[in-house]
């Protein structure tokens, strides 16, 4: 009977869409970094069926719920990386300056070992982004790092849709210099965006007129049948951007192009946008604030091409001091493993407060992805996405000891097996797979530059993981 009930329950779950495995755990006596409500010493966090139900002292575990001792340790919300390319099959549909129709939700590799390594750095969610080859690239997908589940199960349910734009050298190099296709210049980049937004508005008008005429003809209210206007995958997405249903995350570096895009967005009434990388954002911090723009930057990564020579490790701190909601991202399979260090650099260089630095890898990226009502802080009612750290997460000596998503443990350093690769090819030797990390990863692995780099070695932009 129990079995029958269980299977009915499982069936119900599977009918509700991406049924997630959730867990329950009581984490006791840790220093809880709530992010939104200060640090709380010797405090317990109770997660039940994936949701934080209670934060307080001397909580007792409901029957069947495991208790974990975190005394002397820190409990922190799971880190959120607003710019990542791990867990991807392909990153760049680089062949056209505008590819809004493609989506990273169809390019997920749930078995990528990088997911496990990110979990080991206390990361629980990523913004899986399309690459930066195109002015209007593909749609991104916000994921929870439920390692080894499936493409559907990896999705962050309820996260708003987002899309990648890219300004500057990448799109002008790939399309203008590479194929003599507009844009060749920064001016051209602006025009590509405006032209496509205009085309989308025309499309919407024409398509709606056709559908209305079709209905009228079929109801006998119109004499002649209309000429069909086919549904257009690319234009549909652009229309959704214009209508505010898709948030824009733009690969950008220079202050002038950041200003340009804000003007374009103001002209078209686009309100929710984040500038990614934005190495020169510090120059226009007040303007960014005025436009309610968000930024997501590197702590100190620059000079890998001409447009990122003018950079500073104070970028994050200056933006923060100007009231711009800023996050620090990895854009890398290597940096994602220690985003806590990246956040610590804002404290080290720019004297940003520890609390604000931690916000840059938790609640701020959550806000930029529209998931701040669910994750990014430890609050009752939010998702049980937390990590237990051996010491203060901004200390260089601290490590994430365990990482939970929806109350379910996905990483435990004490039980960390030697080999966490899930996809094992029967035909690949151990020795070969062992070398793989060094060949495929490192600081330059799994980045949105990867495609561009490959592009210039004439091997095509295609990037297959594993």
């Amino acid at each position, binding site marked *: 009977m129990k079995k029958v009930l269980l299977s009915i329950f499982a069936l119900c779950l599977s009918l509700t869409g991406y049924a997630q495995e959730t867990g329950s755990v009581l984490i006791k006596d840790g220093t809880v970094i709530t992010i939104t409500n200060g640090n709380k010493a010797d405090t317990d966090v109770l997660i039940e069926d994936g949701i934080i139900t209670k934060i307080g002292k001397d909580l007792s575990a409901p029957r069947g719920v495991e208790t974990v001792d975190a005394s002397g340790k820190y409990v922190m919300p799971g880190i959120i990386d607003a710019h990542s390319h791990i867990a991807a*099959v*392909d990153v*760049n*549909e*680089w*062949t*056209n*300056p*505008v*590819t809004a*129709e*493609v*989506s*990273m939700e*169809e*390019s*997920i*590799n*749930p078995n990528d070992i990088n997911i496990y390594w990110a979990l080991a750095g206390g990361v629980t969610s990523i913004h899986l982004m399309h690459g930066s080859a195109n002015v209007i690239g*593909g749609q991104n997908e916000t994921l929870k790092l439920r390692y080894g589940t*499936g*493409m*559907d199960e990896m999705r962050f349910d309820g996260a708003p849709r987002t899309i990648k734009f890219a300004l500057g050298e990448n799109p002008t190099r790939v399309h203008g210099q590479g*194929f003599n*296709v507009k844009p060749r210049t920064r001016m051209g980049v602006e025009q590509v965006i405006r032209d496509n937004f205009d085309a989308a508005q025309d499309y919407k008008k024409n398509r709606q007129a056709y559908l209305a005429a079709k209905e009228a003809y079929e109801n006998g209210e119109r004499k*002649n*049948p*209309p*000429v*069909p*206007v*086919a*549904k*257009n*995958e690319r234009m549909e997405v652009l229309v959704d951007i214009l209508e505010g249903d898709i948030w824009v995350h733009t690969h950008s570096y220079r202050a002038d192009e950041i200003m340009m895009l804000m003007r374009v967005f103001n002209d078209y009434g686009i309100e929710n946008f984040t500038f990614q990388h934005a190495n020169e954002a510090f120059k226009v911090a007040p303007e960014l604030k005025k436009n309610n723009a968000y930024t997501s930057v590197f702590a100190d990564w620059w000079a890998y091409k001409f447009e990122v020579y003018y950079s500073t490790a104070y970028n994050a701190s200056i933006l923060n001091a100007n009231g711009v909601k800023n996050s620090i991202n990895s854009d890398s399979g290597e940096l994602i493993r220690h985003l806590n260090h990246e956040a610590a650099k804002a404290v080290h260089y720019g004297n940003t407060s520890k609390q604000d630095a931690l916000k840059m890898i938790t609640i701020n990226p959550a806000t930029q992805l529209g998931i701040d009502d669910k994750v990014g802080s430890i609050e009752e009612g939010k998702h049980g996405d937390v990590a237990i750290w051996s010491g203060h997460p901004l200390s260089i000596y601290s490590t994430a000891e365990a990482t939970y998503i929806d109350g379910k443990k996905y990483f435990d350093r004490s039980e960390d*097996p*030697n*080999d966490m*690769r*899930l*996809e*094992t*090819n*029967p*035909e690949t*030797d*151990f020795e070969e*797979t062992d070398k793989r990390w060094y060949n495929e990863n490192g600081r330059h692995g799994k980045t949105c530059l990867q495609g561009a780099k490959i592009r210039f070695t004439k091997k*095509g*932009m*295609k990037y297959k993981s594993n």
Partner: protein
Amino acid sequence: MKLARITVLCIALLMVFSLQVRSQSSPAEAFENVTIHTADGNTIESGTIVWRNGVITDVGKNVSIPFDAYVRDGGDSLHVYPGFIDGLAQWGSPDVPDVDTPERPGDPGYKRAGIQPQRRPASLMKAGADALTKAPKHGFTAAGLGLKGQMLPGQVDLFFIQGNKTKDNVLKSGIGVLAQFEEAQGQAYPSTTMGVMSEFRQLFHDAKALNQQEHYFASVSSNYPAPEENKTLEALYPVMDQEQPFYFVADSKENIERMFWLQDELEFNAVLISGKEAYKKADELKERNIPVLASIDLPEEPEWRASQKEEGEEKEKEKPAEEVQEVTEEMRKFRERQQEAYKAYVQNINKLIEAGVKVGYASNGLDLSDIHKNLKTLQEEGNLSGKQILKMFTQSTADVLGYGQKLGDLEEGRIANFTVFTKSFLDDETEAQYSVSNGQIMEFESSK
């Protein structure tokens, strides 16, 4: 009225006459004293099989052979099997030509993007292709043939396999439209899996709009612009109307899921081709009523496992310590997982059958010479019996192709497609001596 009667009479007479002519020109043929294996794995010892005009007229133990029959005596040593059917092979397909980068990589045109659902193997096939000559020697008498290419390489045509005469022996054109998650060659859109997904959707939207315009154009007398002819999109109409399935090539769990996503949105019928990880989605395939034409292109056994087997564990122990490779904990864990992955691949077909999925066979590029070795592995490690393998290669594939009543078994009324082997078909020493396809017999010289 009178005219009608005369017409009917004439037709009837013509039919009788033509039948007679045909029966006269085509005497019966028979094998006697052979072991006959039916698709379900039963055998008839010292049996006889008779066929005429491409159709089996009698099979069994005590069969009376027509007076005009040309009879071959098997001497009780030959084995007759239903002709094997390859659900999707690329035999005779022209190779994919090299291409240049289009002027606008983002807008390469259908052909350059690999979108050519209108192409027909029957017209493009290389008649003298080696594989077409070899296939009958491996027991194949019929096959669905497709073309090499990218996302939509063309139609799948069902042929009788008769060496270089295959091209003129089409049983049915367009049993399906081949589809796969293959990007355009070189530098052109779509260059990613997500781009291919999007392109499938757009093609259906465009085909739908064109279809609508054609419909409108035909329905009004004047004052309406003529639709532009577009053979590429028109070739998708039968798929949209669910009159023709997509023969969809996908191996990984994720690609099979992507196919499901497209199916939910675009509402086509599908036959899954290859499906190396289909076992992971077996229940859903069953639920969706998607049959699988499965690949038997199995992975090689992990090297360490093969060498362990070869040397035997005893010998390993006797080896001097310095020669024994140290197996670290990490390596051991890796090997465990590799072993599981190997087993899962090898047991794919068995798991599909157990889940109630209809499973036939498709080579989809596997070389004919690799079949025997893989069948051995399926038998030894894949939990498949010889009977199951035989059924998969014959009746089950015929069922998936929609020819389950006509092909795939040896019984009266079926198309005369069978192969005469010197031994059981799974025997290492076996050789095909005769191949009969649509009643046409080919004799092979022994290689010994």
